[in-house]
């Protein structure tokens, strides 16, 4: 079913299609970032596609690749009942110049999902009407779902209490009351205390 959809996109945007993948009804098209908006518009407006629902839009960070971020959009057609995953690749290894066109004026649901993707990955959506952080607070620095964001870095909004050994206040003993991950990077943890917690 959706193999026909992939062929249709290949026929119309042959030069912009980087890669396709189709297995067990799971269909993916990877396109050039420059064609992102046009392919999306095509998916929505062409009667054979009629993708009237944008189910999800997010990003994946592959720090070892050169276009570092992969933007992933999942489309669904309510009238035709088929799905398609559309991807594009943007951003250099530093995470700069990660810019892609916004899909807000095609699907209203793109608004908050693009804001979340901006918040978590620092991807800029051009022509987005209101590109602010949506989950983290405005004072937050950096983008927490990037792979180079330190796993144990916190940015408290208010100062922690001024008591000795704030990480482990009694009655919790050293190996108690804290979770699985923290114990493996205990040293970087101590560094963080000086810089982050006032």
């Amino acid at each position, binding site marked *: 079913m959706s193999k026909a959809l992939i062929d249709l996109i290949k026929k119309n945007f042959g030069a912009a299609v980087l890669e396709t993948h189709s297995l067990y009804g799971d269909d993916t098209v990877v396109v050039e970032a420059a064609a992102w908006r046009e392919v999306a518009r095509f998916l929505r407006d062409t009667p054979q596609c009629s993708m009237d629902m944008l189910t999800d839009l997010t990003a994946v960070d592959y720090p070892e690749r050169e276009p570092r971020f992969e933007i992933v959009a999942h489309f669904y057609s309510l009238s035709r009942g088929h799905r398609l995953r559309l991807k594009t690749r943007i951003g250099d290894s530093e995470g700069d110049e990660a810019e892609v066109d916004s899909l807000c004026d095609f699907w209203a649901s793109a608004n908050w999902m693009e804001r979340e993707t901006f918040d978590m990955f620092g991807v800029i959506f051009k022509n987005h009407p209101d590109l602010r952080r949506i989950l983290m607070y405005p004072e937050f620095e950096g983008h927490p779902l990037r792979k180079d964001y330190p796993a144990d870095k916190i940015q408290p909004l208010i100062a922690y209490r001024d008591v000795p050994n704030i990480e482990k206040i009694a009655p919790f003993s050293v190996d108690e*009351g804290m979770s*699985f991950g923290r114990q493996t990077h205990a040293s970087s943890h101590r560094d963080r205390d000086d810089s982050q917690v006032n």
Partner: protein
Amino acid sequence: MGELKPSSTQILEPGAAGGAGFATTRLEAVLAWAQKYSLFMYPFVTACCGMEFMSVSSPRYDFSRFGSEAPRFSPRQSDLLWVVGTITQRQAPILKRIYEQMAEPKWVLAFGTCASCGGFYDNYACVAGVDKVIPCDVYVPGCPPRPEAVLDGLMLLQDKIQTGNRTPAIVKPRQDPVVEQNIGLVQLRKSRTSVA
């Protein structure tokens, strides 16, 4: 679990010669006794532990038996702050402000693992335990805690109020008496499989 420490209260029975009996006590003891049975609570409910909180406050477990019946949705009218659920960095200033608005004497109970120490929310978004922001009196671990553990925590707090002890305390796990006494379904099943 805390046991009640002996109080300074004495009750003198009427003697054989008749006459009225009387009791002696200290004012602090009477005040503490009154406070521990009239805890007006402020539920700061942020996450899934709230379901368990509703369970404890509903008739089946019914913590109004302990005098902590009336929830007050103004911190100015409450004595006991229940922090129920995960506290994010974004929410920490709100929690601190709620705490500061409460009038003395005030107590804080951390309900569940997230409120006690952050639990598995070991990440950029969450506060690893409310005690990083506000002082905490009793920790009730569990994800979510059993209602019995919550009742243990409440009684522990009452003991602490009675004795005037403000050191933080944690509710210890209880041994399941069924397992302990070697009766009941678990042991039955074990013995059956070992025979087979």
